[in-house]
């Protein structure tokens, strides 16, 4: 299955990534060969499977209790830009 450059552009936008022209061609080729490979799944009869969920026995919800969490500085400390205990993000509304 061929993944076109237009399709790559759509996926790049969904992925918040950018590719230059050279990279575009290479990733289109790689994606095409990987998607052709995973396409083999379409041939498998899965009508016997009614329920697609897995790891059913897990995922127990915990009680909604207030607990002590990490100090602000520990978390904010990793931000490239910060001020007075807040993250600095690009302006969204002028």
């Amino acid at each position, binding site marked *: 299955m061929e*993944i076109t450059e237009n*399709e*790559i552009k*759509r*996926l*790049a936008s*969904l*992925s*918040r*990534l*950018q*590719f230059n022209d050279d990279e575009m061609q290479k*990733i289109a080729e*790689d*994606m095409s*060969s*990987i*998607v052709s*490979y*995973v396409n*083999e*799944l*379409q041939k*498998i009869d*899965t009508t*016997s*499977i009614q*329920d*697609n*969920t*897995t*790891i059913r*026995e*897990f*995922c*127990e919800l*915990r009680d909604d209790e207030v607990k002590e969490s*990490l100090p602000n500085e*520990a*978390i904010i*400390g*990793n*931000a*490239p*830009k910060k001020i007075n205990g807040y*993250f*600095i*993000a*690009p*302006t*969204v509304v002028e």
Partner: protein
Amino acid sequence: MEILNETIENISGLLKNKEISSVELVNASLKRIDETQNLNILHEVCRESAVEKAKEVDELRAKGAELSPLAGVPVVIKDNISMVGTYTTCSSKFLENYKSPYNATVVDKLQNAGAIIVGKANMDEFAMGSSSETCAFGVVHNPRNPEYVPGGSSGGSASTVAGNQCFASLGTDTGGSIRQPSSFCGVVGLKPTYGLVSRYGVVAFASSLDQVGPITKSVKDSALMLDVISGYDANEFTSAKHEPENYYENSFKNSIKGLKIGFAKEFVELLKNQEVLNSFMNAIDFFKANGAEIVDIKLPHIKDALAVYYVLSSAEAASNLARFDGIKYGVPTDEFKDLVDFYVQSRTKGFGKEVKRRIMLGNFVLSSGYFDAYYNKAKAVQNLIINEFSDAFKNCDVIISPTTPSPAFKIGEKVSNPLEMYLNDIYTVPVNIATLPAISLPCGVASNGLPLGLQIIGNRFSESKLFNLGDYFEKNCFNLREV
């Protein structure tokens, strides 16, 4: 050097009898790390904290305290596991400056047992890769031959043990990332049952498949490590409420009589390498000659597990990596048009090629128009594979296969063809797809001088059976450390 070649089992005896101190061990380990720096195994070495902790353990021991077998023993953790005072980079430029604000549960458990964490191991970026060549801080070299890859993604974790920098390490395994590098480096790697070991504080790749596990020099050491790191953790949503087993005390029976070992011809049909086939058939003959029963089982969809894996793991990776926006941590960007462009610039700059490829693939299979055809179909085939394993385990105790379809390959050999690289994981991936445990241990040496691995797969929570069979094989058939 020689002391560093010992198992934890032996070394903890020496420590206990005060024939060696933990400070001496840690210094030997740090010296070895310096001597083998060219292999690019570790991203960070915890020199001062390691020596300090070793002194504490020695003092406790001098006072006659009852200590764990791991107390005072140098170990290494993969660089996607959080530890206060260290960076957790996942071998990605994106996290080059990211400092762990808290400890992963497995780090707390190791430290509570007195283990000395001496360093953090390089890996494939965000654990995506099978050769440790996608590491943003340079390729990791196989200590058995530096021209060859150590496997991946826990290539640093396997190399640090094989290269005698430490006695054991932690890796993570999403599709074979503990077992495949353990096989390539000639050490013992365990991927525990999904849910048995907490992943709290471990950077997620594909959450329904990821599992933390030990890499060691012997099977018994693997049991020692699992005793320390396993157990329920309320901080983790998928942690299993499984009673502690004391694997080291209870697993080893020194007999495999009557054990039913499953053999699936589908595994052999996938195999093209004669040396891998020969070493695998030797193992089967050995098991038969020692009283085990070889049972033919059918796993008809095992060959499809890899396609299932690439759909599911990429989909989960794309979602997990959506949080990397460059605001809370990551690469700062100064030139951007608007908020979305800020994300685009940060992510484009911060992520490497393979990570971008997986995010793109993940968003492809999750995007509208393709979700049913790819994601839902893969989940359905995953269930077929789970059912096939459940049926197989009605007739056998464990299932064996080679760990990898070939021994380690040369650095650069497969880097331009991602699909060929992915095929390395054909034997290991089904185990994650079915949430099972499996161990890889050395079972021979190929003509290129590099080790081959045997994989033993168990039913959920049957780690003790893997340990017993693996230890029996290591003691009576093949032990790479004695070759």
